[in-house]
């Protein structure tokens, strides 16, 4: 239970970090952000990199800004910092709702927004939030900066579209406007564990009618899943029990989760339906309050 031997650098600038990542002799190189998943992986020796590039000294990655209706959260912003940020609560209520489900306070004090997204655990909260909101993931590599839509970012189990020599630098989401509400719920065996199933929902109303519904699920596939059939079933409708049921059934029919020792596929589908009804109802109620 001790990390293996590796070389270590802790550059103070993004350029130096990218240079370290893209050096021809870098070998198997890994980025260390909050380390709340990565250091355990080192201790368990599931990760045995030759070089660790610690990005914790790169202060430029630790800022939260809102400009022109776009919220930009630097990848090194601590989860706890975002959880208590008034800017995040207002512009990205779904993220503020989801973060308390991540681990525990001592984990969130150190864990980062970008680290969780780049780690891409399919049961994790922040990848689900990114998928739900069609976040843009900003990556920087030796060739410059590029923006990856969330729908193309999560390519599989713990796998993303980031190249070996790229660093996730920020997450961008469109700031939530008026008449918008969000909710996040998940079921886990113990508080703080990764979810068996998690659901994030954001609803924007036009009068009493759903103008836009966004729903994403964790724990039901190899990457976060958008419930596009449920979103379509809600759009243009007034949220009531029968519409919620219809949306939940449409979403669940499209899911094919796998069974593991934490829960069977049938149980996961059942929980997904329950949580979709619950989160969409809560998000719609909050949207009405925000009109």
């Amino acid at each position, binding site marked *: *239970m*001790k*990390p*293996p*031997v*590796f*070389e*270590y650098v*802790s550059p103070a600038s993004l350029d130096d970090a990218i240079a370290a990542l893209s050096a021809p002799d870098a070998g198997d190189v890994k980025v*260390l952000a909050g*380390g*709340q998943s990565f*250091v*355990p992986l*080192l*201790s*368990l020796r599931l990760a045995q990199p030759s070089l*660790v590039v*610690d990005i*914790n000294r790169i202060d430029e990655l630790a800022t939260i800004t809102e400009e022109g209706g776009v919220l930009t959260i630097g990848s090194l912003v601590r989860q*706890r910092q975002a959880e*208590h940020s008034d800017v995040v609560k207002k512009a990205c209520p779904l993220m503020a709702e989801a973060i308390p489900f991540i*681990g*525990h*306070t*001592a*984990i969130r*004090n*150190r864990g980062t927004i970008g680290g969780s997204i780049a780690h891409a655990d399919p049961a994790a909260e922040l990848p689900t939030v990114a998928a739900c909101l069609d976040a843009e993931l900003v990556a920087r590599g030796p060739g410059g900066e590029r923006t990856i839509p969330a729908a193309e970012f999560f390519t599989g189990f713990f796998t993303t579209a980031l190249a070996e020599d790229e660093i996730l630098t920020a997450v961008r989401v469109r700031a939530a406007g008026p008449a918008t509400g969000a909710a996040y719920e998940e079921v886990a065996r*113990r*508080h*703080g564990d990764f979810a068996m199933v998690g659901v994030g929902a954001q609803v924007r109303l036009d009068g009493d009618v759903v103008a836009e519904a966004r729903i994403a699920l964790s724990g039901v596939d190899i990457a976060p899943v958008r419930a596009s059939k449920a979103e379509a079933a809600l759009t243009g409708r007034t949220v009531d029990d029968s519409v919620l049921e219809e949306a939940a059934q449409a979403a669940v029919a499209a899911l094919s989760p796998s069974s593991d020792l934490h829960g069977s596929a049938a149980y996961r589908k059942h929980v997904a339906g329950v949580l979709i009804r619950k989160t969409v109802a809560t998000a719609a109620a909050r949207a009405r309050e925000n009109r």
Partner: protein
Amino acid sequence: MSTREITVTVNGRKRTAHVEVRRTLADFLREDLGLTATHLGCEHGVCGACTVVVDGHTERSCTQLAVQADGREITTVEGLAAADGTLHPVQQALRDNHSFQCGFCTPGFVMSIYGMCEEKKAGRPVPCSREEIREELSGNICRCTGYQSIVDGAEAALAGAGTDTTGGQA
């Protein structure tokens, strides 16, 4: 073998040491500084026994590297009681409420509750209901199933935080 020189303030005292870069902060505290009250249970961030306060925030010492603590300020459970042995109010509250059995998890619980009390003193919103305390302490595992009395102790400590003037250097 890759090593670095680091300087860390631990319980108010500056400590400089050469560490292997793969050394976790928990092992640095225990093995290099001899501060063995920070316990290691799971060594992968689940049990909470290794919780310490880093720059004012509770963090796991097993899920960060010692080299990352360079220049930072750390409080371990050894840093709470006064020099004359007077217990910190958090420790006293846990003692008054018999909040432990075997004691292995206790340092982690003390530091988590201490962190909550410090947040309260700083005027930040802090969980104070029993349900909220349970949720906040869910990152610390006790295998003697002593949670009832631990929550009692935490409740007492939080009720007193910000009102007492005795004990505790930190």
